[in-house]
C-alpha cells in the first residue's frame, strides 16, 4: 500500500517535471527601444520552442554595468554594436555568438497630428520650446539625433531647447505627454504594422546619421543554456524578422 502510494507520487512528480527537462529558461537583457517587438518575438518563441524567455528592459550602459557585476543574464540585445563587442573582448560574452539583429531607424515625432511635416522642416522653423532626445552620451539614438542635427546645420541653434531622456523610452515619454512638443525617438516606438500609431513624424533618412546597428550576444552565463542558443537562432528566422520589420527596423 505504502509503496504503491510512493510509486504513484513519483510518477506524478516525474510527469510534472518532465516537460521542464526539455524547456529551459533564458534571461534576456533587452535595449529599451526594442521593448515592443521583443515582447511579441518572445511570445512566439515560447510557443514555437517551449522555452521560456524572461525579458528585462533597460539601457545598454546599465546592463553593461550589471553584467560586469554578475547579473544573471544569458543574452544581451543591445542598442548598439560597441557594448556587445566590448563584453566579448573582456571575456564576458561568447566569442562569435554576436550578430546584428536589427538596424534602428530614427524618427522626429510629435504627439500632435500635423505638427511634424514629412520633410522635418519644422526643425528649421524652431517654433517649439523643447526638443526631446535621448542623452547622446549614453544612447545610440541620442547620438544619431545629434549627428542628424549637425548635418542639417541646426545643432547650435537647437541645443538650448534640448531636453534629454536617460534612454529612448523616457524620451518618448517626454514627447507623448506633450511636455516636449517634439523629439527624436526610435521609429519602433511610434510605428506598428508598417504605419504610424499616432501623432506626426518625419522618418529621418539613413544618410543623415551612421546606421544604428544593434547587436545581440550570448553572455558567458548563457553559453551552455539551450534556450539562449535557441533564442539567438530564432531571432534570425523569418517569423522574428517579420516582426522586427513591422516595427520599422531593418536588419
Amino acid at each position, binding site marked *: 500500500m505504502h509503496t504503491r502510494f510512493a510509486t504513484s507520487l513519483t510518477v506524478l512528480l516525474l510527469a510534472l517535471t518532465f516537460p521542464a527537462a526539455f524547456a529551459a529558461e533564458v534571461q534576456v537583457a533587452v535595449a529599451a527601444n526594442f521593448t515592443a517587438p521583443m515582447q511579441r518575438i518572445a511570445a512566439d518563441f515560447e510557443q514555437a520552442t517551449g522555452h521560456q524567455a524572461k525579458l528585462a528592459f533597460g*539601457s545598454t*550602459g*546599465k546592463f*553593461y*554595468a550589471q553584467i560586469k557585476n554578475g547579473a544573471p543574464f544569458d543574452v544581451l540585445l543591445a542598442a548598439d554594436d560597441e557594448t556587445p563587442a566590448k563584453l566579448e573582448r573582456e571575456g564576458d560574452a561568447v566569442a562569435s555568438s554576436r550578430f546584428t539583429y536589427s538596424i534602428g531607424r530614427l524618427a522626429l515625432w510629435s504627439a500632435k497630428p500635423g505638427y511634424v511635416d514629412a520633410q522635418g522642416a519644422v526643425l528649421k522653423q524652431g517654433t517649439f*520650446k*523643447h526638443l*526631446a532626445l535621448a*542623452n547622446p*552620451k*549614453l544612447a545610440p539614438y541620442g547620438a544619431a539625433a545629434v549627428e542628424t542635427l549637425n548635418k542639417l546645420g541646426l545643432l547650435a541653434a537647437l541645443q538650448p531647447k*534640448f*531636453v*534629454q*531622456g*536617460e534612454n529612448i523610452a*523616457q524620451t518618448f*515619454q*517626454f514627447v507623448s*505627454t*506633450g*511636455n*516636449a512638443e517634439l523629439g527624436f525617438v526610435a521609429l519602433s516606438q511610434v510605428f506598428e504594422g508598417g504605419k504610424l500609431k499616432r501623432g506626426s513624424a518625419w522618418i529621418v533618412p539613413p544618410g543623415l546619421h551612421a546606421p544604428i546597428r544593434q547587436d545581440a550576444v550570448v553572455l558567458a552565463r548563457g553559453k551552455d543554456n539551450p534556450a539562449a542558443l535557441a533564442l539567438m537562432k530564432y531571432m534570425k528566422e523569418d517569423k522574428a524578422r517579420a516582426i522586427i520589420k513591422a516595427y520599422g527596423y531593418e536588419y
Partner: protein
Amino acid sequence: MLSDTDWSAIRLTLELASVTTLLLLVIGTPIAWWLARTRSAWKGAVGAVVALPIVLPPTVIGFYLLVAMGPEGPVGRLTQSLGLGVLPFTFAGLVVASVFYSLPFVVQPIQNAFEAIGERPLEAAATLRASPLDTFFSVVLPLARPGYLTASVLGFAHTVGEFGVVLMIGGNIPDKTRVVSVQIYDHVEALEYAQAHWLAAGMVAFSFVVLLLLYTLNPTGRRA
C-alpha cells in the same frame, strides 16, 4: 577630479535643496500645527496624504507630476493660464516636485514637536493675555526648536538625495535641472566610473556628516 559640469550639478543641487527647505518650513508649519491640534475627522486623511511620498516609489510621483504638470494636465493648464508656461524641465518645476516629495520629512518632525508641547504652555500664555500669534512665536517656536532642526536637516538632505522624480521631470538640462544624483547616474551609465566615484563618495560623506550632526546635536530628533 571634478569637472565643470560636476560642480555646476553640485551648485544646482544645493540651490534646489535650500529653496525647497525654506519653502517647506513655511508651508509645513501650518500643516503640522493643524495636524497636531485638530480634532477634525479629516486629520487621518490629511496625515495620510502628507505621508504618501514616503511609501510611493519616486517613479509614480515623477510620472504623475510629469502628466499633471504637462500641457494637458490640471496643474499644467493652471500654470499656462497664469502665463507661467509648463513646469517640467524647469528649476521651478523641480522645486514644486521636491516640496511635495520631501513634505513628510518636514511636516512630521514639526508635528511631533508641536504635539509634545501639549496644552499647558498655551494655556499659561493665554492667561497672560498673549495673542495667539504672540504665543506661537514666543512660546511654541522656541519649544519646537529641536523639531525644526530635524525637519530642516531631513528636508534638505532628502532633497539632495532625490533622484527618480528629478530624472522623470527634469530633462537633464545643465545648470537648470541636472542635479548631482542625475550626474552620477550619467557617469555610471557612460561607464565613467572614476568620476562617478568622486561624486558618489562625496554624497555618502555629505549624508553621513549631516545625519551625524543631527543625531549628536539633537538626540531627541530621532523620534521624528
